[in-house]
């Protein structure tokens, strides 16, 4: 009696899964661009302005299986630094796409826009992180100022250690003389951390800059003061739940964690996954650690690199646990600084 019941339930589940999965309409497509190394994104609607409709297929050239879905068509967006972005529609019979990209010129100096590169950073100024530890209880929450300060110091120390083999580092403490400049720099960096897509940033047709003249000037002054070519800003928070809250929640929810965008993309690419699906907005979390990082060119105010991610609760009194988090957060950054790549 039990066995037929299980079979029926299993059949029902399989049918439900089958009903919810999109129709598979797989066809091979080869994408080539001239020049190569352009980021190819995919949309099933032709709409790329909304991040949620975008899937990353990877840098060109490649040949992959694409799901053309029920509509039997797809749109590709091709982006490369210094070139006009292109959107094209493809169908299963297209098979091979070759796109000749058109160079863009800097409107101020009428020169071609330079390719993305992270080389030339010999000294890095690390700003004191904007990081808070929030103790959450059933009836409220409170920022633990003492533990937050310890966490900021541990973060700074471990970040310096992480980059020590790469370049010299200096720490920009929130001193009186720097206060106004730091405030100005942070003000324009926060929206960049919120809205710029970490994966597509090196491929964006135009380099993104800090928005206001005062923050670009702040970057210049701070960089000059620290004799650094780039400024590294880290922000985030850790939500910690009290033992009673955790005990009360056991069995009711599972705390989900995601890892960094750049790290997830690198791992997906290494596995040979055809598509990388992500959303640049951070999910809500009750317990865990959110970290965002941005690297700013101190001379120009250009946003050179950024990444963010969500991890589990990090015990900051045990720096060893921070190392894998930093490796994930800064995924690919040290290598890009060494070889000038993306």
């Amino acid at each position: 009696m039990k066995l037929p019941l299980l079979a029926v339930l299993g059949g029902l589940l399989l049918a439900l899964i089958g009903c919810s999965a999109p129709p598979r309409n797989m066809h091979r497509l080869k994408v080539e661009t001239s020049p190569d190394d352009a980021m190819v994104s995919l949309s099933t609607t032709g709409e790329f302005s909304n991040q949620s409709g975008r899937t990353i297929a990877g840098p060109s050239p490649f040949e992959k299986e694409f799901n053309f879905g029920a509509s039997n068509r797809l749109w590709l967006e091709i982006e490369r630094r210094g070139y006009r972005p292109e959107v094209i529609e493809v169908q299963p019979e297209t098979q091979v796409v070759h796109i000749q990209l058109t160079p863009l010129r800097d409107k101020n100096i009428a020169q071609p826009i330079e390719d993305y590169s992270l080389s030339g950073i010999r000294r890095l100024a690390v700003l004191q992180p904007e990081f808070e530890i929030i103790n959450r209880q059933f009836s409220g929450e409170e920022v633990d100022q003492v533990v937050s300060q310890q966490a900021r110091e541990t973060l700074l120390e471990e970040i310096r250690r992480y980059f020590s083999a790469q370049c010299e580092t200096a720490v920009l403490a929130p001193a009186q003389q720097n206060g106004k400049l730091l405030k100005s720099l942070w003000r324009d960096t926060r929206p960049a951390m919120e809205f710029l897509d970490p994966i597509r940033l090196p491929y964006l047709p135009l380099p993104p800059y800090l928005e206001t003249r005062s923050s670009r000037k702040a970057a210049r002054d701070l960089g000059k003061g620290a004799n650094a070519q780039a400024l590294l800003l880290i922000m985030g928070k850790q939500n910690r739940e009290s033992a009673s809250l955790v005990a009360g929640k056991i069995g009711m929810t599972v705390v989900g964690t995601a890892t960094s965008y750049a790290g997830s993309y690198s791992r997906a690419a290494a596995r040979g996954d055809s598509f990388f699906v992500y959303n640049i907005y951070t999910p809500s979390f009750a317990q865990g650690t959110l970290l965002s990082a941005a690297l700013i060119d101190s001379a120009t105010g250009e946003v050179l690199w950024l990444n963010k991610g969500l991890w589990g609760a990090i015990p900051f009194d045990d720096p060893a646990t921070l190392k894998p988090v930093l490796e994930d957060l800064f995924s690919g950054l040290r290598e890009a600084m060494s070889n000038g790549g993306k």
Partner: protein
Amino acid sequence: MMKRWLIVVVTLFLSILAGCTLPLSMDQPEKIALSHQQPHPCRAGLYISQELQDAVHVVTTSPVDRMSYPIGDQTRQVFQINLPAVFQEVIAVDSKTPSQAVDVIIEPSIVKFEAKVPMPAYNPYEANMTYHVDVYNKSGEKIFAQTATGKAQSSKGLMSGFSARKISATVAQMAMNDAAKQIMEGLAEAEELQNP
């Protein structure tokens, strides 16, 4: 007797439904403490577009309940209250058309507002507000633009589950104030606005 009970139940049900769809009640915004010294010595026109004025963000929390955040009206008030700390004189203008009556026109807008009403209620209430402001001179030329993101979080949910609307409104206002403070400080610092 039966009829009276029916009327009571129906009235109660309709009142609950009406309560669920009313906009969140937000306190009047407070003046934000700013660190700068002197306001810009010019007359600014504050232009609030109809689109911004009417902006409402709706979060559906259940089939019969939704939270409606009057973010446009709050934004108007936040700028009306705080802009006089940045410019010597501020008047409301109803168009972006350049005018001799003002030196600069300030046009705020909402880039993105996000509110998280937790389910279950013991998770944090969160809100993110991103404001953008454009500033035009007397010739109608854009001379300054700035975007600022403000964030807020609160964990008062479980002990006051019936106050979810109040907590949501408070967290939204905290995020708006955080973003508005940065916008005001950016405007106050802008060299472009010293001699517009």
